[in-house]
């Protein structure tokens, strides 16, 4: 769990930074007409996103996220700045409580921080 969280955070930040760099160069390309750098960074981001998916999907299962947050985590790697936003949000709402072992029993059969009850 802890290793998975660390890997997810590393990949979220690396993928996010590369994506922002890619955007900066893509905007620059409009003026310089030199596609080589953008192509290289674009390919790099594609590869990093594959790793990001491999790392983040198991984490969404471990945290027992429902469909919405899961899709948000997986797609965040393709939208500029989104990895930072989603990582922060997921950390606050799910990762930190999970690492702290907080699973309060709640009325209605829900566990706090694992909102989707398993049948």
């Amino acid at each position: 769990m802890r290793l998975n969280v660390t890997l997810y955070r590393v990949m979220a930040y690396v993928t996010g930074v590369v994506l922002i760099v890619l955007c900066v160069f893509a905007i620059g390309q409009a003026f310089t007409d030199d596609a080589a750098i953008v192509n290289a960074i674009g390919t790099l981001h594609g590869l990093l996103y594959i790793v990001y998916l491999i790392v983040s999907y198991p984490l969404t299962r471990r945290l027992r996220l429902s469909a919405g947050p899961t899709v948000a985590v997986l797609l965040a790697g393709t939208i500029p700045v989104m990895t930072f936003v989603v990582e922060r949000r997921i950390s606050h709402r799910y990762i930190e409580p999970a690492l702290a072992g907080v699973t309060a029993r709640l009325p209605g059969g829900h566990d706090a921080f694992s909102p989707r009850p398993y049948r």
Partner: protein
Amino acid sequence: MPGTEAPPWRFLITPKWLAWHLIVIGSVYGMLVLGDWQLHRALAGNALSWAYTFEWPIFAVFAVVFWAKTIRDEFHPPAVAGAAGEGIELPVGAAGRAARAAATSPAGEPATPEEEADLAAYNAYLARLHREVKGHGKWHGLR
């Protein structure tokens, strides 16, 4: 009554899951189309397209694998850290009060006003947590 319970795979044909099946099938098909398009661009001499020619099918495979694993997890939920009853986290002081309440008022005996106030406060705490949890699936913005 045996034989009348819903089969375990029944959830797969609920409207919500059917919608997800369609989304997955549609997105996988779309990714394969994009991969095919990139292959043709690559064959036409666009060197960059070779990377995407392989990436799109990989993403399509990911979608299928993640989907299969999600459905498998629905059938066999992974063990949760801190089994039921162990990981219960009570607010500061509530654990002692709850234990005392359990010890001093066995079932059936009327509780003292003090114990009732404790219980009401604890129930209010649970209700607040429950409200917070119910909002989990929604987007709250940056926190």
